[in-house]
Protein backbone atom coordinates (compact mmCIF):
# COMPACT_ATOMS: atom_id res chain seq x y z
CA UNK A 1 0.00 0.00 0.00
CA UNK A 2 2.70 2.45 0.92
CA UNK A 3 5.48 1.25 -1.30
CA UNK A 4 5.92 4.54 -3.10
CA UNK A 5 6.08 6.53 0.08
CA UNK A 6 9.48 6.32 1.62
CA UNK A 7 11.84 6.99 -1.24
CA UNK A 8 11.02 10.67 -1.02
CA UNK A 9 11.50 11.00 2.67
CA UNK A 10 15.00 9.63 2.38
CA UNK A 11 16.40 12.86 1.00
CA UNK A 12 14.70 14.87 3.68
CA UNK A 13 12.41 17.70 2.93
CA UNK A 14 14.79 18.73 0.19
CA UNK A 15 13.47 16.30 -2.36
CA UNK A 16 9.85 17.42 -2.56
CA UNK A 17 10.81 21.07 -2.33
CA UNK A 18 13.76 21.02 -4.68
CA UNK A 19 12.20 19.76 -7.85
CA UNK A 20 9.58 22.49 -7.97
CA UNK A 21 11.46 25.05 -9.93
CA UNK A 22 14.28 23.32 -11.75
CA UNK A 23 14.36 23.38 -15.52
CA UNK A 24 15.62 19.87 -16.00
CA UNK A 25 15.43 16.86 -13.79
CA UNK A 26 19.14 16.98 -12.97
CA UNK A 27 18.67 20.38 -11.41
CA UNK A 28 17.00 18.68 -8.50
CA UNK A 29 20.47 17.99 -7.32
CA UNK A 30 21.70 21.03 -5.50
CA UNK A 31 25.45 20.67 -6.22
CA UNK A 32 24.82 20.07 -9.92
CA UNK A 33 22.65 23.15 -10.13
CA UNK A 34 25.21 25.21 -8.27
CA UNK A 35 28.17 24.03 -10.35
CA UNK A 36 26.37 24.65 -13.65
CA UNK A 37 25.23 28.02 -12.43
CA UNK A 38 28.71 29.07 -11.34
CA UNK A 39 30.27 28.04 -14.65
CA UNK A 40 27.70 29.94 -16.69
CA UNK A 41 28.07 33.07 -14.59
CA UNK A 42 31.86 33.12 -14.37
CA UNK A 43 32.30 32.51 -18.08
CA UNK A 44 30.03 35.41 -18.93
CA UNK A 45 32.82 37.78 -20.05
CA UNK A 46 33.66 35.11 -22.65
CA UNK A 47 30.24 34.64 -24.17
CA UNK A 48 28.55 38.00 -23.66
CA UNK A 49 30.71 39.69 -26.36
CA UNK A 50 29.71 36.93 -28.79
CA UNK A 51 26.09 38.05 -28.33
CA UNK A 52 27.06 41.62 -29.04
CA UNK A 53 27.41 42.74 -25.45
CA UNK A 54 30.40 44.14 -23.60
CA UNK A 55 32.22 43.33 -20.40
CA UNK A 56 30.35 45.92 -18.36
CA UNK A 57 27.05 44.38 -19.35
CA UNK A 58 28.13 41.13 -17.74
CA UNK A 59 28.82 42.99 -14.51
CA UNK A 60 25.43 44.70 -14.66
CA UNK A 61 23.64 41.40 -15.25
CA UNK A 62 25.39 39.84 -12.27
CA UNK A 63 24.56 42.78 -10.01
CA UNK A 64 20.91 42.84 -11.03
CA UNK A 65 20.93 39.06 -10.76
CA UNK A 66 21.69 39.38 -7.05
CA UNK A 67 18.90 41.93 -6.71
CA UNK A 68 16.25 39.74 -8.37
CA UNK A 69 17.44 36.61 -6.61
CA UNK A 70 16.65 38.19 -3.26
CA UNK A 71 13.40 39.48 -4.65
CA UNK A 72 12.45 35.93 -5.56
CA UNK A 73 12.93 34.77 -1.97
CA UNK A 74 10.24 37.22 -0.95
CA UNK A 75 7.89 36.98 -3.94
CA UNK A 76 8.54 33.46 -5.16
CA UNK A 77 8.78 31.66 -1.84
CA UNK A 78 6.76 33.77 0.54
CA UNK A 79 4.27 35.30 -1.88
CA UNK A 80 4.81 38.93 -0.93
CA UNK A 81 5.04 41.31 -3.87
CA UNK A 82 7.15 44.28 -2.84
CA UNK A 83 6.90 47.35 -5.03
CA UNK A 84 9.49 49.15 -2.99
CA UNK A 85 12.66 47.12 -3.24
CA UNK A 86 14.36 50.15 -4.76
CA UNK A 87 14.47 51.45 -1.19
CA UNK A 88 17.07 48.82 -0.27
CA UNK A 89 18.96 48.93 -3.56
CA UNK A 90 19.06 52.72 -3.60
CA UNK A 91 19.45 53.04 0.16
CA UNK A 92 22.54 50.82 0.14
CA UNK A 93 23.83 52.64 -2.95
CA UNK A 94 23.57 56.01 -1.20
CA UNK A 95 25.26 54.72 1.95
CA UNK A 96 28.04 53.24 -0.19
CA UNK A 97 28.38 56.50 -2.10
CA UNK A 98 28.52 58.45 1.14
CA UNK A 99 31.31 56.20 2.45
CA UNK A 100 33.37 56.55 -0.75
CA UNK A 101 32.92 60.31 -0.86
CA UNK A 102 33.29 61.29 2.78
CA UNK A 103 34.67 58.42 4.85
CA UNK A 104 36.82 55.79 3.20
CA UNK A 105 37.57 54.39 -0.21
CA UNK A 106 37.88 50.89 1.22
CA UNK A 107 35.21 48.58 -0.19
CA UNK A 108 34.95 46.54 3.02
CA UNK A 109 34.09 49.62 5.08
CA UNK A 110 31.49 50.62 2.50
CA UNK A 111 30.10 47.09 2.34
CA UNK A 112 29.59 46.84 6.08
CA UNK A 113 28.07 50.32 6.28
CA UNK A 114 25.71 49.65 3.38
CA UNK A 115 24.48 46.41 4.95
CA UNK A 116 23.92 48.05 8.32
CA UNK A 117 21.91 50.71 6.52
CA UNK A 118 19.93 48.05 4.65
CA UNK A 119 19.18 46.19 7.86
CA UNK A 120 17.84 49.31 9.56
CA UNK A 121 15.68 50.17 6.54
CA UNK A 122 14.41 46.59 6.22
CA UNK A 123 13.45 46.35 9.88
CA UNK A 124 11.62 49.70 9.86
CA UNK A 125 9.78 49.11 6.56
CA UNK A 126 9.14 45.45 7.39
CA UNK A 127 7.68 46.18 10.81
CA UNK A 128 5.08 48.41 9.18
CA UNK A 129 4.48 46.90 5.74
CA UNK A 130 4.53 43.24 6.79
CA UNK A 131 1.39 43.79 8.83
CA UNK A 132 -0.56 43.74 5.60
CA UNK A 133 -0.73 41.27 2.76
CA UNK A 134 -1.51 41.35 -0.93
CA UNK A 135 -2.03 44.67 -2.63
CA UNK A 136 -1.87 46.59 0.67
CA UNK A 137 1.59 45.27 1.32
CA UNK A 138 2.66 46.23 -2.20
CA UNK A 139 1.31 49.74 -1.81
CA UNK A 140 2.90 50.24 1.60
CA UNK A 141 6.32 49.22 0.29
CA UNK A 142 5.86 51.48 -2.73
CA UNK A 143 4.91 54.37 -0.46
CA UNK A 144 8.00 53.89 1.71
CA UNK A 145 10.31 53.73 -1.26
CA UNK A 146 8.77 56.89 -2.70
CA UNK A 147 9.10 58.65 0.63
CA UNK A 148 12.76 57.76 0.67
CA UNK A 149 13.15 58.96 -2.91
CA UNK A 150 11.47 62.25 -2.05
CA UNK A 151 13.59 62.64 1.07
CA UNK A 152 16.80 62.04 -0.87
CA UNK A 153 15.85 64.83 -3.27
CA UNK A 154 14.63 67.30 -0.66
CA UNK A 155 15.69 67.29 2.98
CA UNK A 156 18.75 65.13 2.37
CA UNK A 157 19.72 66.94 -0.83
CA UNK A 158 22.82 68.56 0.70
CA UNK A 159 24.07 65.08 1.50
CA UNK A 160 22.84 63.21 -1.57
CA UNK A 161 23.46 65.81 -4.23
CA UNK A 162 19.75 66.07 -5.01
CA UNK A 163 18.79 65.59 -8.63
CA UNK A 164 22.40 65.40 -9.74
CA UNK A 165 22.98 62.23 -7.79
CA UNK A 166 26.08 61.60 -5.76
CA UNK A 167 29.20 62.52 -7.68
CA UNK A 168 32.94 62.99 -7.13
CA UNK A 169 33.34 59.74 -5.24
CA UNK A 170 36.79 58.37 -4.48
CA UNK A 171 37.94 55.43 -6.50
CA UNK A 172 36.88 52.38 -4.43
CA UNK A 173 39.62 49.87 -3.74
CA UNK A 174 40.43 46.85 -1.65
CA UNK A 175 43.72 47.76 0.05
CA UNK A 176 45.00 49.32 -3.13
CA UNK A 177 43.45 46.91 -5.63
CA UNK A 178 41.26 48.95 -7.94
CA UNK A 179 37.71 47.81 -8.57
CA UNK A 180 37.72 48.07 -12.31
CA UNK A 181 36.89 45.86 -15.25
CA UNK A 182 37.06 42.18 -14.53
CA UNK A 183 37.99 42.59 -10.85
CA UNK A 184 34.58 43.94 -9.90
CA UNK A 185 32.95 41.46 -12.24
CA UNK A 186 34.51 38.49 -10.49
CA UNK A 187 33.75 39.90 -7.05
CA UNK A 188 30.12 40.41 -8.05
CA UNK A 189 29.96 37.00 -9.73
CA UNK A 190 31.32 35.34 -6.60
CA UNK A 191 28.69 37.12 -4.53
CA UNK A 192 25.97 36.00 -6.93
CA UNK A 193 27.20 32.41 -6.73
CA UNK A 194 27.23 32.57 -2.93
CA UNK A 195 23.81 34.21 -2.96
CA UNK A 196 22.48 31.49 -5.23
CA UNK A 197 23.94 28.74 -3.05
CA UNK A 198 22.35 30.33 -0.01
CA UNK A 199 18.99 30.65 -1.76
CA UNK A 200 19.12 26.98 -2.79
CA UNK A 201 19.97 25.92 0.75
CA UNK A 202 17.21 28.10 2.06
CA UNK A 203 14.65 26.71 -0.33
CA UNK A 204 15.45 23.13 0.59
CA UNK A 205 15.57 23.71 4.32
CA UNK A 206 12.70 23.61 6.80
CA UNK A 207 12.95 27.40 6.81
CA UNK A 208 12.20 27.50 3.08
CA UNK A 209 9.29 25.15 3.54
CA UNK A 210 7.87 27.47 6.21
CA UNK A 211 8.14 30.38 3.76
CA UNK A 212 6.29 28.42 1.11
CA UNK A 213 3.70 27.51 3.71
CA UNK A 214 3.18 31.21 4.42
CA UNK A 215 2.27 31.66 0.78
CA UNK A 216 0.02 28.61 0.84
CA UNK A 217 -1.95 29.14 4.02
CA UNK A 218 -0.63 31.50 6.70
CA UNK A 219 -3.52 30.80 9.04
CA UNK A 220 -2.88 27.06 9.05
CA UNK A 221 0.78 27.75 9.68
CA UNK A 222 0.05 29.99 12.65
CA UNK A 223 -2.33 27.33 13.98
CA UNK A 224 0.34 24.71 13.60
CA UNK A 225 2.35 26.57 16.19
CA UNK A 226 4.64 28.56 13.92
CA UNK A 227 5.43 32.19 14.64
CA UNK A 228 4.49 33.34 11.14
CA UNK A 229 5.42 36.93 11.84
CA UNK A 230 9.08 36.12 12.55
CA UNK A 231 9.38 33.98 9.44
CA UNK A 232 7.83 36.70 7.29
CA UNK A 233 10.17 39.31 8.72
CA UNK A 234 13.17 37.05 8.21
CA UNK A 235 12.24 36.55 4.56
CA UNK A 236 11.78 40.28 4.10
CA UNK A 237 15.10 41.16 5.72
CA UNK A 238 17.03 38.49 3.80
CA UNK A 239 15.47 39.70 0.58
CA UNK A 240 16.35 43.30 1.42
CA UNK A 241 19.98 42.33 2.01
CA UNK A 242 20.29 40.85 -1.46
CA UNK A 243 19.04 44.18 -2.81
CA UNK A 244 21.44 45.98 -0.50
CA UNK A 245 24.42 43.95 -1.72
CA UNK A 246 23.40 44.74 -5.29
CA UNK A 247 23.18 48.45 -4.46
CA UNK A 248 26.64 48.37 -2.91
CA UNK A 249 28.11 46.58 -5.94
CA UNK A 250 26.46 49.02 -8.32
CA UNK A 251 28.23 52.00 -6.81
CA UNK A 252 31.48 50.08 -6.42
CA UNK A 253 31.32 49.17 -10.11
CA UNK A 254 30.58 52.70 -11.22
CA UNK A 255 31.40 55.28 -8.51
CA UNK A 256 28.31 57.37 -8.97
CA UNK A 257 24.89 57.22 -7.28
CA UNK A 258 22.00 57.94 -9.63
CA UNK A 259 18.69 59.11 -8.16
CA UNK A 260 17.10 56.43 -10.32
CA UNK A 261 18.41 53.78 -7.92
CA UNK A 262 15.74 54.88 -5.43
CA UNK A 263 13.06 55.55 -8.03
CA UNK A 264 9.94 53.39 -8.25
CA UNK A 265 10.90 52.40 -11.80
CA UNK A 266 13.81 50.43 -10.32
CA UNK A 267 11.35 48.46 -8.18
CA UNK A 268 9.22 47.98 -11.28
CA UNK A 269 12.14 46.66 -13.30
CA UNK A 270 12.80 43.97 -10.71
CA UNK A 271 9.19 42.88 -10.93
CA UNK A 272 9.37 42.73 -14.73
CA UNK A 273 12.62 40.75 -14.66
CA UNK A 274 11.16 38.26 -12.18
CA UNK A 275 7.92 37.74 -14.09
CA UNK A 276 9.62 37.41 -17.48
CA UNK A 277 12.09 34.89 -16.12
CA UNK A 278 9.76 32.86 -13.93
CA UNK A 279 8.82 33.77 -10.38
CA UNK A 280 9.84 31.29 -7.71
CA UNK A 281 12.44 29.46 -9.77
CA UNK A 282 15.56 31.36 -8.61
CA UNK A 283 17.32 30.94 -11.98
CA UNK A 284 14.37 32.38 -13.88
CA UNK A 285 14.56 35.91 -12.50
CA UNK A 286 18.31 36.00 -13.17
CA UNK A 287 17.64 35.01 -16.79
CA UNK A 288 14.96 37.70 -16.81
CA UNK A 289 17.48 40.25 -15.54
CA UNK A 290 19.89 39.25 -18.27
CA UNK A 291 17.17 39.53 -20.89
CA UNK A 292 15.98 42.97 -19.82
CA UNK A 293 19.52 44.37 -19.52
CA UNK A 294 20.43 42.89 -22.88
CA UNK A 295 17.46 44.71 -24.36
CA UNK A 296 18.33 47.94 -22.59
CA UNK A 297 21.91 47.91 -23.81
CA UNK A 298 22.42 45.81 -26.92
CA UNK A 299 19.04 45.75 -28.62
CA UNK A 300 18.59 49.43 -27.93
CA UNK A 301 21.76 50.18 -29.88
CA UNK A 302 20.23 48.43 -32.89
CA UNK A 303 16.59 49.49 -32.88
CA UNK A 304 16.77 52.71 -30.86
CA UNK A 305 14.08 53.86 -28.45
CA UNK A 306 11.68 51.23 -29.83
CA UNK A 307 13.23 48.75 -27.39
CA UNK A 308 10.82 49.77 -24.63
CA UNK A 309 7.89 48.97 -26.88
CA UNK A 310 9.29 45.57 -27.78
CA UNK A 311 10.12 44.77 -24.16
CA UNK A 312 6.61 45.80 -23.17
CA UNK A 313 5.18 43.44 -25.76
CA UNK A 314 7.36 40.62 -24.51
CA UNK A 315 6.15 41.29 -20.98
CA UNK A 316 2.50 41.25 -22.04
CA UNK A 317 3.06 38.07 -24.01
CA UNK A 318 4.71 36.34 -21.07
CA UNK A 319 2.03 37.35 -18.58
CA UNK A 320 -0.77 36.33 -20.94
CA UNK A 321 0.61 33.09 -22.35
CA UNK A 322 3.52 32.06 -20.16
CA UNK A 323 2.61 32.77 -16.54
CA UNK A 324 5.61 30.69 -15.50
CA UNK A 325 8.03 32.87 -17.48
CA UNK A 326 10.96 31.76 -19.62
CA UNK A 327 11.56 28.81 -17.33
CA UNK A 328 8.15 27.50 -18.29
CA UNK A 329 9.02 27.98 -21.95
CA UNK A 330 12.12 25.84 -21.43
CA UNK A 331 9.94 23.22 -19.76
CA UNK A 332 7.50 23.26 -22.64
CA UNK A 333 10.30 22.70 -25.14
CA UNK A 334 11.66 19.94 -22.93
CA UNK A 335 8.26 18.31 -22.86
CA UNK A 336 7.62 18.80 -26.56
CA UNK A 337 10.82 16.95 -27.35
CA UNK A 338 9.37 13.90 -25.68
CA UNK A 339 10.71 14.15 -22.16
CA UNK A 340 8.68 13.59 -19.05
CA UNK A 341 8.12 16.37 -16.60
CA UNK A 342 6.56 16.83 -13.24
CA UNK A 343 3.64 19.20 -13.05
CA UNK A 344 4.42 22.63 -11.74
CA UNK A 345 1.99 25.22 -10.50
CA UNK A 346 2.17 28.79 -11.57
CA UNK A 347 2.75 31.36 -8.98
CA UNK A 348 -0.68 32.81 -9.22
CA UNK A 349 -2.15 33.06 -5.73
CA UNK A 350 -4.95 30.67 -4.97
CA UNK A 351 -8.25 32.50 -4.95
CA UNK A 352 -9.52 30.40 -2.08
CA UNK A 353 -6.98 32.01 0.17
CA UNK A 354 -8.33 35.56 0.08
CA UNK A 355 -7.12 36.98 3.28
CA UNK A 356 -8.21 38.89 6.28
CA UNK A 357 -5.44 38.50 8.79
CA UNK A 358 -4.65 34.84 8.46
CA UNK A 359 -7.10 34.08 5.73
CA UNK A 360 -10.35 32.31 5.06
CA UNK A 361 -13.89 32.65 6.15
CA UNK A 362 -13.20 30.90 9.45
CA UNK A 363 -12.23 34.15 11.03
CA UNK A 364 -15.42 35.85 10.03
CA UNK A 365 -17.61 33.25 11.58
Amino acid at each position, binding site marked *: *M*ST*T*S*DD*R*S*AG*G*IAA*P*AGDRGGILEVFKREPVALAAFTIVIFSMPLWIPVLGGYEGLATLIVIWGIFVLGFDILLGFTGYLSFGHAAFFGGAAYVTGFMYRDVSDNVIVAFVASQVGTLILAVVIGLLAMRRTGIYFSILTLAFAEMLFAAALSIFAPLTGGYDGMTRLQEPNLFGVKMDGLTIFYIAAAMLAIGYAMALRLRNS*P*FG*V*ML*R*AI*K*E*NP*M*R*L*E*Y*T*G*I*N*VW*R*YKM*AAFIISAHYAGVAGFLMVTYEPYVATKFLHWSTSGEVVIMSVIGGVGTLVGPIIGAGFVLYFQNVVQAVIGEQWRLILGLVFVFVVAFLPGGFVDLARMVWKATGNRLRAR*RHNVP*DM*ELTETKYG*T*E*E*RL*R
Partner: protein
Amino acid sequence: MATGANGAAQDRDDILQVNGVSKRFGGLQALGDVNLTVARSSIHAIIGPNGAGKSTLLNVMIGLIEADEGEVVFDGTPLRGVSPHNIIQRGIARVFQTPQIFPGMTLLENVAIAGFSKRDGQFTVNPHQSLKRSEVMDEASAILRRVGLGGKVAEDAGHLSRGDKRRLELGVCLAAHPKLLLLDEPTAGMARHDTNKTIDLLKEIADTGVTKVVIEHDMHVVFSLAERITVLAQGRIIADGKPDEVRGDPKVREAYLGGEH
Protein backbone atom coordinates in the same frame (compact mmCIF):
# COMPACT_ATOMS: atom_id res chain seq x y z
CA MET B 1 4.19 25.01 38.21
CA ALA B 2 1.54 27.64 38.75
CA THR B 3 -1.85 26.14 39.28
CA GLY B 4 -4.68 28.32 38.04
CA ALA B 5 -4.07 32.05 38.03
CA ASN B 6 -7.45 32.68 39.61
CA GLY B 7 -6.45 30.55 42.56
CA ALA B 8 -8.92 27.80 41.79
CA ALA B 9 -7.07 24.58 42.30
CA GLN B 10 -7.87 21.87 39.82
CA ASP B 11 -10.05 19.55 41.83
CA ARG B 12 -10.36 16.94 39.13
CA ASP B 13 -7.74 16.52 36.46
CA ASP B 14 -9.15 19.01 33.99
CA ILE B 15 -7.04 19.94 31.00
CA LEU B 16 -9.31 22.76 29.88
CA GLN B 17 -11.58 25.11 31.76
CA VAL B 18 -13.85 27.62 30.10
CA ASN B 19 -14.91 30.13 32.73
CA GLY B 20 -17.86 32.42 32.02
CA VAL B 21 -17.02 33.11 28.39
CA SER B 22 -19.28 35.54 26.52
CA LYS B 23 -18.97 36.83 23.00
CA ARG B 24 -21.16 39.20 20.99
CA PHE B 25 -21.03 39.78 17.26
CA GLY B 26 -22.89 43.05 16.84
CA GLY B 27 -26.39 42.32 18.06
CA LEU B 28 -25.91 38.58 18.16
CA GLN B 29 -25.04 36.93 21.44
CA ALA B 30 -22.87 34.14 20.07
CA LEU B 31 -21.82 32.86 23.48
CA GLY B 32 -23.43 33.71 26.80
CA ASP B 33 -21.65 32.85 30.04
CA VAL B 34 -20.34 29.48 28.93
CA ASN B 35 -18.77 27.36 31.65
CA LEU B 36 -17.19 24.10 30.70
CA THR B 37 -14.52 21.73 31.91
CA VAL B 38 -12.86 19.04 29.85
CA ALA B 39 -11.32 16.11 31.70
CA ARG B 40 -7.85 15.00 30.67
CA SER B 41 -7.68 12.12 28.22
CA SER B 42 -11.41 12.18 27.59
CA ILE B 43 -13.47 12.62 24.46
CA HIS B 44 -15.81 15.51 24.97
CA ALA B 45 -18.49 16.30 22.40
CA ILE B 46 -20.14 19.65 21.89
CA ILE B 47 -23.43 19.44 20.05
CA GLY B 48 -26.25 21.80 19.28
CA PRO B 49 -28.31 23.18 16.41
CA ASN B 50 -26.70 25.30 13.67
CA GLY B 51 -25.69 28.70 14.93
CA ALA B 52 -25.54 27.54 18.53
CA GLY B 53 -22.03 28.93 18.92
CA LYS B 54 -20.06 25.68 18.79
CA SER B 55 -17.43 26.84 16.30
CA THR B 56 -17.18 30.20 18.03
CA LEU B 57 -16.43 28.39 21.27
CA LEU B 58 -13.59 26.43 19.63
CA ASN B 59 -12.30 29.63 18.08
CA VAL B 60 -12.20 31.27 21.50
CA MET B 61 -10.27 28.29 22.87
CA ILE B 62 -7.44 28.71 20.37
CA GLY B 63 -7.36 32.48 20.33
CA LEU B 64 -8.82 32.96 16.86
CA ILE B 65 -11.57 35.00 18.45
CA GLU B 66 -11.11 36.93 21.68
CA ALA B 67 -13.87 36.56 24.23
CA ASP B 68 -15.61 39.70 25.52
CA GLU B 69 -15.73 38.25 28.99
CA GLY B 70 -14.43 35.21 30.81
CA GLU B 71 -11.30 33.20 30.28
CA VAL B 72 -10.02 29.92 28.99
CA VAL B 73 -7.58 28.04 31.20
CA PHE B 74 -5.50 25.36 29.54
CA ASP B 75 -3.42 23.01 31.62
CA GLY B 76 -3.44 25.43 34.54
CA THR B 77 -2.57 28.64 32.70
CA PRO B 78 -5.02 31.21 31.34
CA LEU B 79 -4.79 31.80 27.59
CA ARG B 80 -5.87 35.43 27.46
CA GLY B 81 -3.35 37.53 25.57
CA VAL B 82 -1.34 34.55 24.40
CA SER B 83 -0.74 34.65 20.65
CA PRO B 84 -2.25 31.81 18.60
CA HIS B 85 1.01 30.09 17.75
CA ASN B 86 1.97 30.05 21.41
CA ILE B 87 -1.38 28.54 22.33
CA ILE B 88 -0.69 25.81 19.81
CA GLN B 89 2.85 25.37 21.15
CA ARG B 90 1.40 24.72 24.58
CA GLY B 91 -0.37 21.71 23.21
CA ILE B 92 -3.68 22.52 21.53
CA ALA B 93 -4.34 21.57 17.93
CA ARG B 94 -7.38 22.35 15.84
CA VAL B 95 -9.06 20.66 12.91
CA PHE B 96 -11.19 23.24 11.13
CA GLN B 97 -14.63 22.88 9.63
CA THR B 98 -13.28 23.71 6.18
CA PRO B 99 -10.06 21.72 6.00
CA GLN B 100 -7.08 24.05 6.38
CA ILE B 101 -4.05 22.56 4.69
CA PHE B 102 -1.21 23.72 2.45
CA PRO B 103 -2.73 22.91 -0.94
CA GLY B 104 0.39 23.46 -3.06
CA MET B 105 2.63 21.22 -1.00
CA THR B 106 2.96 17.48 -0.81
CA LEU B 107 1.22 15.54 1.93
CA LEU B 108 4.60 14.77 3.44
CA GLU B 109 5.53 18.44 3.58
CA ASN B 110 2.17 19.30 5.09
CA VAL B 111 2.72 16.97 8.01
CA ALA B 112 6.46 17.67 8.32
CA ILE B 113 5.76 21.36 8.93
CA ALA B 114 3.89 20.42 12.07
CA GLY B 115 6.71 18.06 12.98
CA PHE B 116 9.17 20.94 12.79
CA SER B 117 6.94 23.31 14.73
CA LYS B 118 8.23 22.29 18.16
CA ARG B 119 11.80 22.93 17.07
CA ASP B 120 11.42 25.79 14.60
CA GLY B 121 8.13 27.37 15.60
CA GLN B 122 9.71 30.33 17.36
CA PHE B 123 12.41 30.84 14.75
CA THR B 124 15.18 30.49 17.27
CA VAL B 125 18.59 29.21 16.36
CA ASN B 126 19.44 26.35 18.65
CA PRO B 127 22.79 24.67 18.04
CA HIS B 128 21.86 21.76 20.27
CA GLN B 129 18.91 20.58 18.27
CA SER B 130 18.15 17.03 19.15
CA LEU B 131 15.51 16.65 16.47
CA LYS B 132 16.87 15.46 13.15
CA ARG B 133 15.27 16.19 9.85
CA SER B 134 15.11 12.52 8.90
CA GLU B 135 13.32 11.72 12.16
CA VAL B 136 10.67 14.32 11.39
CA MET B 137 10.21 12.96 7.88
CA ASP B 138 9.98 9.39 9.12
CA GLU B 139 7.42 10.34 11.69
CA ALA B 140 5.48 12.34 9.12
CA SER B 141 5.18 9.33 6.83
CA ALA B 142 4.21 7.16 9.78
CA ILE B 143 1.44 9.59 10.69
CA LEU B 144 0.23 9.68 7.09
CA ARG B 145 -0.01 5.90 7.10
CA ARG B 146 -1.92 6.07 10.36
CA VAL B 147 -4.56 8.44 8.99
CA GLY B 148 -4.87 6.26 5.90
CA LEU B 149 -2.96 8.40 3.41
CA GLY B 150 0.24 6.34 3.35
CA GLY B 151 0.02 5.74 -0.39
CA LYS B 152 -0.19 9.40 -1.31
CA VAL B 153 2.71 11.06 0.51
CA ALA B 154 4.18 12.62 -2.62
CA GLU B 155 0.90 13.97 -3.98
CA ASP B 156 -0.12 17.59 -3.81
CA ALA B 157 -2.51 18.20 -0.95
CA GLY B 158 -4.72 20.42 -3.08
CA HIS B 159 -5.72 17.48 -5.26
CA LEU B 160 -7.17 15.42 -2.43
CA SER B 161 -10.85 14.76 -1.97
CA ARG B 162 -12.57 16.64 0.81
CA GLY B 163 -12.59 13.59 3.06
CA ASP B 164 -8.88 13.03 2.49
CA LYS B 165 -8.17 16.70 3.19
CA ARG B 166 -9.82 16.23 6.55
CA ARG B 167 -7.67 13.22 7.23
CA LEU B 168 -4.59 15.14 6.22
CA GLU B 169 -5.48 18.00 8.51
CA LEU B 170 -5.89 15.53 11.32
CA GLY B 171 -2.43 14.22 10.47
CA VAL B 172 -0.99 17.74 10.55
CA CYS B 173 -2.52 18.22 13.99
CA LEU B 174 -1.22 14.91 15.31
CA ALA B 175 2.31 15.67 14.13
CA ALA B 176 2.42 18.60 16.53
CA HIS B 177 1.89 16.15 19.43
CA PRO B 178 -1.00 18.00 21.01
CA LYS B 179 -2.34 17.38 24.48
CA LEU B 180 -5.73 18.62 23.40
CA LEU B 181 -7.22 18.18 19.96
CA LEU B 182 -10.17 20.31 18.87
CA LEU B 183 -12.16 18.83 16.03
CA ASP B 184 -14.83 20.74 14.15
CA GLU B 185 -17.07 18.19 12.45
CA PRO B 186 -14.32 15.72 11.58
CA THR B 187 -16.66 13.46 9.62
CA ALA B 188 -18.74 16.03 7.74
CA GLY B 189 -19.12 15.07 4.10
CA MET B 190 -17.78 11.56 4.61
CA ALA B 191 -19.53 8.38 3.60
CA ARG B 192 -20.63 6.10 6.44
CA HIS B 193 -17.77 3.71 5.79
CA ASP B 194 -15.20 6.50 6.05
CA THR B 195 -17.00 7.92 9.05
CA ASN B 196 -16.59 4.63 10.88
CA LYS B 197 -12.92 4.53 9.99
CA THR B 198 -12.51 8.05 11.37
CA ILE B 199 -14.32 7.08 14.57
CA ASP B 200 -11.92 4.18 15.02
CA LEU B 201 -8.98 6.45 14.40
CA LEU B 202 -10.20 9.01 16.91
CA LYS B 203 -10.71 6.30 19.52
CA GLU B 204 -7.24 5.02 18.85
CA ILE B 205 -5.79 8.50 19.32
CA ALA B 206 -7.71 8.82 22.57
CA ASP B 207 -5.98 5.69 23.81
CA THR B 208 -2.68 7.52 23.55
CA GLY B 209 -3.92 10.02 26.11
CA VAL B 210 -4.77 12.92 23.83
CA THR B 211 -7.83 14.79 25.03
CA LYS B 212 -10.36 15.59 22.34
CA VAL B 213 -13.16 18.09 22.01
CA VAL B 214 -15.40 17.25 19.07
CA ILE B 215 -18.12 19.29 17.44
CA GLU B 216 -20.38 16.98 15.54
CA HIS B 217 -23.78 16.90 13.92
CA ASP B 218 -23.83 13.19 13.33
CA MET B 219 -25.39 11.66 16.46
CA HIS B 220 -24.05 8.27 15.46
CA VAL B 221 -20.53 9.67 15.79
CA VAL B 222 -21.30 11.54 18.99
CA PHE B 223 -22.78 8.60 20.83
CA SER B 224 -20.18 6.13 19.69
CA LEU B 225 -17.30 8.41 20.71
CA ALA B 226 -18.08 10.83 23.48
CA GLU B 227 -17.63 10.21 27.14
CA ARG B 228 -19.22 13.53 27.98
CA ILE B 229 -21.54 15.73 25.96
CA THR B 230 -22.22 19.44 26.23
CA VAL B 231 -25.28 20.80 24.45
CA LEU B 232 -25.25 24.40 23.27
CA ALA B 233 -28.25 26.30 22.02
CA GLN B 234 -28.22 29.99 21.15
CA GLY B 235 -24.86 30.46 22.79
CA ARG B 236 -25.81 28.93 26.11
CA ILE B 237 -25.23 25.54 27.65
CA ILE B 238 -28.55 23.77 28.10
CA ALA B 239 -27.22 20.37 29.09
CA ASP B 240 -23.95 18.80 30.12
CA GLY B 241 -23.31 15.23 31.16
CA LYS B 242 -22.77 11.64 30.20
CA PRO B 243 -24.27 10.52 26.89
CA ASP B 244 -27.19 8.70 28.53
CA GLU B 245 -28.10 11.68 30.69
CA VAL B 246 -28.03 14.02 27.73
CA ARG B 247 -29.99 11.68 25.52
CA GLY B 248 -32.91 11.65 27.96
CA ASP B 249 -32.88 15.37 28.69
CA PRO B 250 -36.17 16.96 27.60
CA LYS B 251 -34.50 20.37 27.07
CA VAL B 252 -32.19 18.84 24.50
CA ARG B 253 -35.04 17.23 22.60
CA GLU B 254 -36.85 20.54 22.61
CA ALA B 255 -33.82 22.46 21.32
CA TYR B 256 -33.35 20.06 18.47
CA LEU B 257 -37.03 19.70 17.58
CA GLY B 258 -37.82 23.36 18.03
CA GLY B 259 -34.71 24.52 16.23
CA GLU B 260 -33.33 22.76 13.20
CA HIS B 261 -34.71 19.79 11.31
